[in-house]
Each structure stands twice: as C-alpha cells, then as structure tokens.
C-alpha cells in the first residue's frame, strides 16, 4: 500500500456521519495521518475506527470520541467529553486537555492518556489496557475495574478504586479516600521502574519533570473481600450493595 501524507478534513460543514466516513475511507486509502479541523466539541467522532493510522483533532471533542475503537491512534488537541474511548479494544487515545466522566470506560485494551484532569468514574469497568492521567481525577475512578493499569499522577477524588476485581492502580498525589474493598499495597522497585518508564514514554520531558518519581506512587488493588460473599465481611458488603 502506498503511504499518503497527512490529509485534512474540515468538519465545520459536515455531519458527524460524513466526518467519520471520511476518516475511515482516508485510512483505508492508506493515509497515515488525518487532521480534523473544527471538531467543535461534536459527539461521536472517530467512533469504531478499525484501521491503523493517526487521527488528530484540532480542538475539543464531545462524548464517546474514539469509542469502540480497534487499532487507530487518536490525538485530541483540546478536551474530551464523556465516555472517551469507551470499550476500546486496541489503539491509543491522547487528550491534551481534560476529559469528562467515564473516560476509558470498559476499555479492553489499548492506551488512554489524558494530560489534564479526568472527571468522575475514570476507567470505570475497565477490562484491560492502560489509563494514564497527568493531572487529577474525580470520584470513583477505577470503579469495578476488572483488569489493566490505571495511573493518576495527581490527586484522586473520593471512593477511589471501589469494588474492583483485578485492575491495578497507581496514584502519585493524594487519594481522596479509598472505595469499598480498595487496599494500598507496597510498591515494588520493579513497579516504580515500570512507572518511570510509562511517564517517560507518554509525557513530554518538561511535564514529566513536574510529576512524582515512580517510587513515590501509591499502589491500590482490590482487597478481594467482595469477590465472593462471606457473612463475616458483612460490613464491607453493606457498604458495597
């Protein structure tokens, strides 16, 4: 396939269906990078992209940008609304601003990087992949997380990592409070090294320098008291149910 240089799409006068159709056809045609001008915080952009290739939005996007994606690389040079990259299988989504509620909800794989802050329920029901937030996150981040890795460089809101199965969380700042069945576990040197590597890979050097060192992150996992009912843990279940 012949590689085609960056292609620009002006979304100003197009419907969302037309924008998405153009992105898909350009990617299928071999374009390696698509620049979308004037996204104007519109919902459902770049949904269900199934081809590899980079899509760059020059501005903010609305709900579900990159939702149900498998394999593409999305950059948002602005902020994102709710449900960023929800249910993504593979690929990556990078948001240079902040993200609304439920970012990376139910992702099964891939990488979501939010350079700014994330709102409530970050990584809710995530089933794999990596979520990395440069700033803070709102309440109930990691709620019901099943697998994957959630990294928050800043502070978290309340009920962090509530009712999780097997997601592993790392927090560089202060934890608002721990959710039901969330426990802090000792960070290993290997994990500190892994975190340093992730931050170096996903954050610009100048930004990385402002974030905590890998060894200063707190590790949060499920206490596994909610995995199977036990009447002796009644208080935990009362809080959870």
């Amino acid at each position, binding site marked *: 396939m012949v590689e085609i240089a960056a292609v620009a799409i002006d979304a100003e006068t197009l419907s969302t*269906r037309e924008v*998405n159709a153009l992105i898909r056809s350009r990617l299928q045609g071999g374009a390696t990078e698509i620049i979308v001008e004037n996204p104007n915080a519109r919902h459902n952009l770049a949904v*269900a992209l199934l081809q590899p290739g980079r899509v760059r939005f020059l501005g903010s996007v609305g709900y*579900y940008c990159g939702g149900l994606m498998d394999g593409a690389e999305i950059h948002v040079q602005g902020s994102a609304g*709710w*449900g960023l990259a929800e249910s993504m299988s593979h690929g990556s989504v990078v948001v240079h601003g902040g993200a609304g509620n439920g970012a990376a909800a*139910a992702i099964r794989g891939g990488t979501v990087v939010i350079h700014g802050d994330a709102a409530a329920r970050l990584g809710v029901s995530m*089933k794999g992949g990596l979520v990395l937030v440069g700033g803070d996150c709102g309440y109930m981040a990691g709620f019901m997380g099943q697998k994957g890795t959630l990294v928050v460089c800043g502070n978290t809101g309340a009920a962090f990592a509530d009712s999780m*199965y097997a997601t592993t969380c790392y927090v560089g700042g202060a934890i608002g409070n721990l959710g039901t069945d969330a426990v802090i576990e000792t960070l290993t040197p290997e994990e500190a090294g892994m975190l340093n590597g992730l931050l170096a890979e996903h954050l610009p050097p100048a930004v990385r320098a402002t974030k905590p060192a890998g060894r200063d992150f707190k590790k949060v996992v499920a206490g596994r008291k909610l*995995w199977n009912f036990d009447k002796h843990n009644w208080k935990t279940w009362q809080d959870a149910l």
Partner: protein
Amino acid sequence: MKNEASHLARPLLQTSGTYSPDVMQGIHTKAETGIYEIRGYGTLRPRRWATFDDLTFLPCGLTRIPLEGYREKCSTRTVLGGRFAKRPLELEIPIMITGMSWGALSYNAKAALAKAAAKVGTSNTTGDGGLSPAEREFARDYVYEVLPSRYGIDVHDLRGASAIELTIGQGAKPGTGGLLLGSKISETIAHQRDLPVGVDQRSPARHPDMLGPDDMVIKIEELREATDGQVPIFVKLGASRTYDDVKLAAKCGADVVVVDGMEGGTGASPAILQEHTGIPTLAAVCEARAALEDCGLYGEVQLIIAGGIRDGVDAAKAMALGADAVYIGTAALISLNCNKPLYVEDYQALGTEPYHCHHCHTGRCPVGITTQDPELMKRLDIEEGAERALNLLRAMTLEIQMLARACGKSDVHHLEPEDMAALTMEASIICGVPLAGTRKVFGR
C-alpha cells in the same frame, strides 16, 4: 376408661398465614447465611395479578368472517426497525429468542437455540458476556446486546449484528445488574468476561458511560455511527415505570423498544427482586402501547414484549394488545428439557424435583442447560436440542396463526384489542377491552 377426647378431637395442624412454612424457611436460611436468597428462574409467586389468561379471543361469527384454518394464508413475516435503520430486521416469524448469556447458559444451549432460530428464520440475542462462539457459528440474525457490564464487548461482533440492543433493564430485576455466581465463572467464561476465575460476578446496574436519557440520545447515535446506521437500535427496559420509560426510549431515538415484564426469567438474582419488583407483562404491554400512541410513534417504533411468554396464545394476546413481536427465554429453555424428569437423582441432589427446579444459579443444571460443567453440558445434545426448540417455535407460530385466522386476520400483526374480551374486571381495566358478558370497558 378410654380417653374419648383422643379420638374425637384429634388436633388439626394449623398453619400461620403470616409465617407460612416458606416464610419460616426463608428466615431460617437468612439466619444461617447472613444473606438474602439468590436463585434463578424468575418469579415463583402464585399469579394473583392480571395475566394473559384473563383475556379470551372473540373469533368470527356473523360480524366477522374467519379465514380457513388450514388453507388460507396468514402472514407471520415481521419487520423491525424501519424508523431509522437502513437495513431493518426481517424475520419469518414474530417470535425471537431473548438475551441469555453464554455463562448463564452452556455452549450447547446457546448453540441449540441459535440453530433453531436460524432454521425457522428468526433471531437470537447475545446476553452478558458478548457473542458466544456458538452464535457466531450458527446464528442467522443475532441481536447484539450492549449491557451495562460491557463484558466481552467487541466492536467486530457488534458490527456483525442484525440489530443492536441497548439494555437498560431486565424484567426479572429492573434497576439492578446481572449476577453470575462463582460456580459458573469457569476459565472460559472468566476469559470471555475479563474476570478472575470463580468470583461472584455482580454486573453493574448503570452503563459506565451514560446516565439518563440525555446521554442515551448520544449513546444511540454512537451505536449508529459504529454500524453506519445500517441496523436497528433496540432499547430494552425492565417493566417498571413503563409508560414514561417507553416514551423516553422512543423519543431518544430507539428504532424498537423492548419491554420485559416481571414474569421474565433470570439465571441468578436475589429472590426478592424477582418477586417484588416490576410490573406484570400484561400491564407492561398496555402501558407501552399507550406511551407510543401518546407520543405519536405507535407503528413507527416497534414494540417487542418479553416476560413469561409461554406459548402462541400469550404471544397472540400480546400482539393483539400492541406488540409487534415477542421474545421467549424460559419457554425456549424448557423446550431444551429444562425441568424434564431426566437425571432425577441430580435434581434431588439440588434439593428439588423435576418441574420444580429453579436452581440455574448453582451451575449444576441436571439437563446441561444452565451449567459450565463439561460433563453436565454433554447431557444436552445440540442437534436434538435445536430440533426441539425449532419445533416449539414452529408450534407457537401455528398457534398464533390459528387464533389470527379464527379472528379473520390474514396477517398475525392485524390482531387488535377488539379481537378480545376480558374475563376479569382487572383485565378489562388494564387492557381497555370489554368484560365478557358486558359491553363495558371498566375504568373508562
């Protein structure tokens, strides 16, 4: 001297109406386990509410002309989702297989149902955990459920579907998520759902990326974007505040609304939710139709009714009251030998008997339907099960046609409320049809 009282006044056993044996047993169990009862199947309560049995058809006499029962055509073709979808779902019959998860059901059960549905020309629905390999291989048309849990969600499977069903609730337990106990979270099921093996999986009640109807408008559009607007988007509701919920679903852009009444089944749920939440299917279909009529979308948005549809009679009555199609779940499982007196000792080991079993939650289904145990699963032969389910679907279709022809209809979708009379005042009030023996619709 003989004690005369001993043979004259043998004491009768008296049973408390308040603390009946089942209530006492429930208290004993809670006192032992510290948790509410969890079980499968659906409500076990005696049906003291208005049901489809409280209606009777009014076949033709002199005022209407019947169709010949065995000779004249009566169409069963069913088209769903023409409101916005470029490719509406076209089915040969108005009976569809409802969403039941691979996990709650065995591979063999999913395979048998998918084969039967394909052969008769109807759809089956995925369930929590996504598309099973059985459905991928055997289904003709599958409806892909997008559930709050998003277990096993896969965009490729979603795009391969003939319709998408955005599930908000389930009739057996509206307002709560699914439950799959650790005994059924085998390695295969755990892998499919991205869960640790053996956990008690408690599915979320809310979608992770939307809350109310304002978000749902955008969510429905997202699903349309993901499928290029090709296939219909269903919204499934557990029957609760049905009138308002159906209006909202339709106004949010659903092509089809599915309403699942309180007689609906479940693989595992707290018993109190099955017994004490939601409204009956008969009431639900009437509220749903009224909602669509009142917002001017009746006929444009199709209505699928689910929840305790046992036979063609229930289906025909639901359709006469406004449904375009029905879902069956429990009846389909019964066709696969659920509760049949086979392997009786295994029913007894569960503390039950054939025809009384509701132990789907244990994963020890004696007939291989609601289990992940490979040995138990073998008891359900896929080909034999498919044939039985196919026969049920065909027989139910014939029943619907028989009633429609008797009422003078050349299409089962032409059945209407005036083809029926109510046998009870409650049914008359709920359904808006006259009480038999009167010309009066009570409550109007």
